[in-house]
């Protein structure tokens, strides 16, 4: 007996994902509950139908814990940074400064929900852009559901070359192909996705009227961001692709707001009044935490001696070869490597400590506020952490029992050569949706997509570009990421409502990449 593809097996492999999706979307369960039941479904199917043994399940769960800790380090410190900045008045000050800079709601939503999230994705990683920007959008008057949806959709295009291009590096490592071969199609497809991402942010925040008003700035700024990312990625600087794109987008966006048509003065009622506790505070000093984050992230990631110094302590565990009774094998090796002092979470923590000390010294944070800051962090952090642990555990069981591979195999074998380029982004998106990460989607499916492209005589770089672009856009829809966004705007336990909204918009961005990949495959 061996792992073989049949409709019955394929449906069984899909079952844990269906359980989570149905519970969250139809029954509106929170991420931790739905993930918990999905985990039970995955374990039962893995044991009964995929030959997973006790030892395999234990090791799969430990690998999931390592992956989760890597992610939770960022989430907890991002929450801490946000609550420190909020205590110092940063969120209220931005809420007043932006409407004062331009009264144009469309430009405000694009600036935070599209440009700032993309820039932060360049430097940060898992969930940081949504965790930081969704509360800012709420401060501007958008509903929490709108805010999470805008911040999530707005940065999907920047994920593959974001986080110092970790997902793209994985694509190179898995396929053995050089960056110079993979970068052009990947950057082209993500650049194309950048435009609908901006338009959707305007639509979610401001309706159809807002969408029409956003067409001009989104086309111009989107072209600039896509072009800068393309130029950096195709010239060997893929680690800075999304950061460069995001910075150029922010600069053009700020210039665009100077245009008479978009510089409109804010209505008196749209600028929130200054509160007594913010009187005499400087906007720039209150934003210090975020400025410091930018400086530290660049310094630590780009200055080689600093990076090497901080990367000396790494935590991981070793795992043996794991085999199911059906012969599905996972190679021996270390689990997720956690770089304790050079981790994005560590950079956020350094930022938190320095910012807190400065805010206390200048009197922006009062004595005794630390307790309430930590209380808010724990309240939000515990809920999202439980959800992430359950979801990553589910993904790890599926991965190690061969269920995830079987899902992709079924998709690729049931599709004709002509249609495959259109389907490839959806396979990438499926992997990212299940695992919550573009990086993990590439780990799961890059080799499969490459084999499929070779068998079907299609362009391998195009199909791999479609894989990682789909993974990037699909990762922002994943329950694990939605939980992060929801935790920062008081929507913990209501992730289902946000996912219902997000899935439709996500289908548009992934569909755009799918159509682009199909057209390119016909032209080359």
């Amino acid at each position: 007996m061996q792992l073989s593809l049949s409709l019955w097996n394929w449906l069984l492999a899909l079952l844990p994902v269906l359980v989570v999706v149905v519970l969250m979307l139809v029954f509106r369960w929170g991420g931790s509950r739905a993930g918990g039941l999905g985990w039970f479904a995955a374990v039962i199917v893995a044991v009964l139908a995929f030959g997973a043994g006790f030892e395999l399940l234990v090791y799969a769960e430990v690998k999931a814990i390592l992956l989760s800790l890597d992610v939770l380090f960022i989430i907890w410190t991002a929450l801490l940074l946000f609550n420190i900045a909020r205590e110092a008045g940063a969120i209220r000050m931005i809420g007043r400064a932006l409407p004062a800079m331009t009264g144009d709601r469309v430009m405000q939503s694009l600036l935070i929900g599209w440009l700032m999230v993309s820039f932060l994705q360049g430097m940060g990683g898992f969930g940081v852009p949504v965790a930081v920007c969704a509360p800012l959008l709420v401060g501007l008057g958008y509903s929490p559901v709108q805010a999470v949806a805008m911040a999530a959709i707005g940065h999907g295009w920047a994920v593959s070359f974001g986080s110092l291009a970790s997902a793209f590096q994985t694509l190179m490592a898995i396929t053995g192909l050089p960056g110079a071969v993979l970068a052009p199609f990947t950057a082209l497809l993500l650049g194309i996705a950048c435009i609908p991402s901006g338009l959707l942010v305007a639509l979610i925040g401001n309706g159809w009227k807002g969408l029409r008003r956003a067409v001009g700035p989104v086309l111009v700024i989107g072209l600039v961001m896509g072009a800068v990312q393309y130029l950096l990625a195709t010239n060997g600087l893929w680690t800075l692709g999304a950061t460069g794109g995001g910075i150029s987008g922010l600069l053009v966006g700020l210039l665009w707001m100077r245009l008479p048509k978009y510089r409109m003065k804010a209505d008196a009622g749209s600028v929130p009044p200054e509160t007594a506790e913010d009187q005499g505070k400087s906007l720039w000093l209150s934003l210090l935490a975020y400025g410091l984050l930018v400086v530290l992230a660049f310094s630590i990631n780009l200055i080689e001696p600093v990076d090497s110094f901080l990367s000396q302590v790494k935590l991981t565990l070793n795992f043996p070869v794991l085999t199911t009774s059906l012969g599905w094998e996972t190679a021996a090796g270390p689990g997720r490597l956690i770089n304790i002092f050079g981790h994005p979470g560590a950079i956020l923590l350094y930022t938190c400590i320095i910012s807190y000390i400065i805010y206390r010294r200048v009197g922006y944070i009062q004595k005794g506020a630390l307790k309430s800051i930590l209380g808010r962090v724990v309240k939000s952090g515990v809920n999202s952490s439980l959800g992430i642990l359950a979801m990553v555990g589910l993904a790890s069981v599926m991965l190690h029992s061969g269920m995830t591979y079987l899902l992709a195999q079924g998709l690729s074998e049931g599709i004709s050569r002509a249609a495959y380029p259109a389907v490839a982004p959806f396979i990438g998106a499926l992997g990212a949706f299940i695992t919550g990460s573009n990086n993990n989607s590439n780990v799961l499916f890059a080799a499969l997509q490459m084999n499929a492209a070779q068998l079907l005589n299609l362009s391998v770089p195009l199909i791999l570009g479609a894989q990682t672009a789909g993974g990037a856009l699909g990762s922002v829809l994943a329950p694990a990421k939605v939980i992060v966004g929801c935790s920062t705007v008081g929507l913990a336990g209501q992730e289902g409502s946000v996912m219902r909204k997000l899935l439709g918009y996500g289908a548009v961005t992934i569909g755009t990449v799918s159509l682009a990949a199909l057209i390119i495959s016909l032209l080359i």
Partner: protein
Amino acid sequence: MTETGIKMDKLKVLRPKLRIGLLALQILLPLVGYYALQADQLGLTWGTSVAFAVSMAVLIWIG
């Protein structure tokens, strides 16, 4: 107030603390299981695994 109502109120108060406990258990139990398995302590590995599954069931129950 009915007995069920009182129980639900108590659960509501306890829920945040239960969640923190569950989070700690869900991180620590698999790690203990890993070291137990490496040391061929199958009984301890089974014990931690069952406790992990129970913690997941409690998580689903308390919502």
